[in-house]
């Protein structure tokens, strides 16, 4: 790590820096660092943190001792009757759904964001088009949840007031209950996520696209490269680092995604995700042991990205 040296004349006393740091460090210690360790500790204890988790084991049932909360968090949703039953229950569990969210939402937001950024690059109303796509970032996930719950709304036999089902009815199809049909409903929620986050990816990717020097692109065109080749062989390699940053950021955002599921289905009808499940265990079932165990599993999924973040930061610092 190449710390930039501070000139000697600016070193004013050994304690001075800590006056500036103290409020931030104290509050971060109490609200982030201490709770992190406490969460780890609680995840090995029973439902209210008074005894070891192994005390909650029931005779004759599988038990992992102090890891009992983890056994519950990892296996409670699964049906281990057969391989097929296991796979089905896994794919509809909070873990399977979180995987669906990660794959489809990250792909959707990054691809659509990049597509839109590239298409509007240089058109007359570029700024306007971009702020329209970006607008959902300003409204809450709760608001977006209501907007889309209304889009998906499943009316009565006589009338469909939800736009999507009205279109399906108009072209002769049977209305679909988007929110309650397992498998389909999680994808319907992912669409909402994509609708919200595409603007974020688009903005970052757009500024990266603009940083590609025009001369390189012009030179390639003069040499007879097709637009397709210009994009994949020249632009993409240059913006690749930004694409990776956007992808990792999106994975983190998706893992923490709670509001959309909470507002639109409450995690019912097999739409649960890890972030929502932690809330359910902790604040609906009031089981701190299980709730914190789910939280730890969530963090373990995020740790690789914490590492990537720090590594990227160090690389940036060295370039300064």
């Amino acid at each position: 790590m190449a710390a930039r040296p501070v000139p000697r004349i600016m070193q004013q006393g050994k304690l001075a820096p800590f006056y500036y740091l103290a409020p931030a460090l104290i509050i971060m210690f109490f609200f982030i660092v201490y709770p992190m360790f406490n969460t780890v500790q609680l995840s090995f204890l029973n439902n209210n943190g008074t005894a070891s988790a192994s005390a909650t084991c029931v005779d004759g049932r599988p038990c992992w001792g102090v890891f009992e909360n983890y056994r519950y968090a990892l296996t409670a949703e699964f049906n281990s009757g057969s391989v097929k039953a296991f796979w089905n229950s896994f794919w509809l569990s909070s873990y399977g759904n979180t995987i669906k969210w990660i794959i489809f939402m990250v792909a959707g937001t990054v691809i659509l964001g990049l597509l839109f950024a590239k298409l509007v690059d240089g058109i007359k109303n570029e700024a306007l088009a971009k702020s329209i796509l970006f607008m959902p970032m300003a409204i809450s996930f709760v608001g977006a949840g209501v907007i889309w719950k209304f889009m998906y709304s499943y009316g009565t036999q006589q009338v469909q007031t939800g736009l999507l089902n009205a279109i399906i009815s108009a072209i002769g199809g049977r209305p679909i209950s988007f929110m309650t049909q397992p498998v389909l409903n999680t994808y319907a929620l992912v669409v909402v996520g994509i609708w919200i986050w595409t603007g974020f990816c688009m903005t970052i990717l757009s500024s990266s696209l603009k940083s590609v020097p025009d001369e390189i692109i012009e030179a390639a065109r003069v040499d007879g490269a097709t637009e397709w080749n210009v994009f994949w062989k020249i632009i993409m390699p240059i913006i690749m680092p930004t694409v990776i940053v956007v992808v990792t950021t999106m994975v983190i955002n998706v893992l923490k995604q709670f509001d959309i599921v909470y507002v639109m289905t409450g995690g019912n009808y097999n739409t649960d995700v890890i972030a929502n499940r932690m809330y359910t265990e902790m604040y609906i079932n009031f089981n701190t042991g299980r709730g914190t165990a789910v939280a730890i599993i969530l963090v373990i999924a995020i740790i690789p990205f914490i590492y990537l973040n720090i590594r990227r930061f160090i690389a940036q610092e060295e370039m300064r």
Partner: protein
Amino acid sequence: MSREKINAFFARIPRNFVILLMIVIWVVPTFGLMITSLRPVQSINRSGWWTILNAPTGSREYAQNCASCHGEDGKLIAAADLTDPALIKQFDRSILLLASLNKEYNGQPHMGTQVVPGAQMAADIVVHLKNVSGVEKRPRVTFNNYVDALVGYRGTRTYVDDCNAGTPPLDINCNLSDLLNPRGMGRAFVNSLLVTIPATILPILFAALAGYAFAWLDFKGRMLLFAILVGLQVVPLQMTMVPISRVYAQLGLNGTFLGVWLFHTGFGMPYAIYLMRNFLGTLPRDLFESAYLDGASHWTAFYRLAIPLALPAIASLGIFQFLWVWNDLLVALVFLGSTTPVMTYQIANMVSSLGAGWHLLTAAAFLSMLLPMVVFFGLQRYFVRGMLAGAVKG
């Protein structure tokens, strides 16, 4: 397929069509919500928002069955003036209207040789008659949903109607105090402001101090501490909530503003410091050196030099934190709950308890979006800049 063919295919995709399609998909849902929130509740449940410009309910049925005798405006038969509210009040149910249509008037069947309309059609005609006579106006556009949402009215009519009739529900007083009804969005709006403003100012204040130390003061472990900070940026809320709500329960901070302010401050800190330090670090070094040479203390250099120069970064950070706190649901749900409902909490609660009360839900959702939209469109430049400076938050 050869490469040339693929290229030709992609060249043919009309780029404007794709752009337009995406913009439509991004605008239509919000637009539909806005239109719906402005329609009377009966219309919302009867037809989609895209029919708002269609002919009003029942007017077609009226023209088909009644207009030949009663006239287009309903006044042609003086003895049975259909614009007279007193007359229409006798037939304000489809079953009453149908009974009258089956009766004989002056020795003749009411409908003459025409077929008596069915129940659904009669109901539509009743709606039309009530509308033209003024018994129950059904305008295309109304603000009643917004009024009802603001005061937390949950009756079967509208707040204005009930108050005019003098029969309000128990929790409605029909005066300005209704704006503070705990079930309403008015109260929630105030609560949201009370949560958001301090939770935006506090982190900026602390982050400016810490960011300055990281950028321009020398101390041991500066880089290590900062690298840890970068890692802390992505720690999820869920990881820290349980212990803090346990501590809050002991301190009595659950359900208090102070508890939420502190939590948002602590959680917003890593990103805020990161942004401030990176911005302050790009200021020219000569500036600080000459200030020190002129005898300025680090404190003078901080608040006379660094802070004024960092205003753009402070603006980005302010917008970020403001939107983050305003739009947050999880923290409000856990630490405030129903004792001090904020807007997001109130809406989430309405979704689960009201089911399909779309007139209230759409109006409430739109109310909650107003302030963020103003902030966003007014200060978009700073928002985007802050986002590009450090893409991770939350």
